[in-house]
């Protein structure tokens, strides 16, 4: 976690992203590296892998997206760190790209199967310092600032962090939605 970024946000400062085009190749490089780095942090005995759906990021070939690469990496690391901690054993964490159904905005989704996020918890997840009760049993320590930082990063891009509550089939999806480029 970047202490400079956290310090700035804690003081109420606004982040100014340095926007650079996110093309197909640079997105895959960043995502694959983040996936690999975060997978190394997961206890191998839990048999959890992180997979990047490369094909799904081809939407970037026909859609212009600008992001701050360092901030995107930070956001991804925070989400993948959570997914690694809370996923059930023998499961896969999927990273997918795509366009939102109605507004056709580019998004990156992290989907996992693990401890559920209930619909009444979604709004709390982005509150600084909030941690779910079940989460405390499996992590012990933790600051509850990961998704708060991601939310700030996405809003600084004019985008959105969307937390989709866990489905009956057990899938939880965290979506980073970027603004459409005109």
């Amino acid at each position: 976690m970047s202490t400079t970024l956290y310090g700035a946000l804690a003081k109420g400062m606004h982040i100014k992203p340095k926007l650079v085009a996110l093309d197909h190749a640079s997105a895959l490089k960043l995502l694959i590296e983040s996936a690999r780095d975060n997978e190394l942090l997961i206890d191998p005995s839990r048999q959890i892998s992180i997979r990047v759906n490369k094909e799904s990021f081809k939407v970037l070939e026909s859609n212009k997206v600008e992001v701050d690469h360092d901030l995107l990496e930070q956001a991804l690391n925070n989400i993948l760190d959570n997914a690694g901690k809370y996923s059930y054993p023998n499961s896969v964490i999927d990273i997918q790209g795509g366009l939102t159904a109605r507004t056709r905005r580019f998004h990156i989704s992290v989907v996992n199967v693990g401890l559920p996020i209930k619909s009444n918890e979604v709004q709390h997840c982005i509150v600084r310092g909030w941690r779910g009760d079940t989460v405390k049993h499996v992590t012990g320590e933790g600051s509850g600032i990961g998704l708060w930082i991601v939310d700030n990063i996405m809003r600084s891009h004019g985008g959105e962090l969307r937390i989709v509550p866990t489905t009956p089939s057990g899938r939880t999806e965290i979506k980073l939605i970027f603004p459409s480029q005109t």
Partner: protein
Amino acid sequence: MRHIYIVLVEDDHLQAEWLESSLAAAFHNLKVERISTESEFYSRLDRIAEAQPDLFIIDVMLRWADPSPTMEGPPDNVMEEGFYRAGLRCQRRISQHHKVKETPIILYTVLEALDLEKALRDMPPGVSYLRKDSESEPLIGKIREVIRL
């Protein structure tokens, strides 16, 4: 040569792997059994006690369980005391277990002795404290001291 059997209770897998390899390099005929959560420790203690380990090395701050669809929440005393006293609860369970109550225990933690002052004052004789270090030598030295190799 005598076989050494150590139970390592550590919830950080990177730390546990590093410790296991460091101890394996320092001691021959070593068997390390790793436990990564407080609930796993309770469920395995009876079977471990049957095997009569030479030493327990226990981190103090431990999570309760790994996520799983069948995971059960912790009992009330764990909820009240919190995860940062988990290793002390494990130590108490060992000290009350008729088969392993004399087995040495090293509480190996990032917590300073001051943080554990009251708990350490009331410890049975076989329990010692060692602050975690980036080098493995202090722990190896402590192990040699408590199991008298």
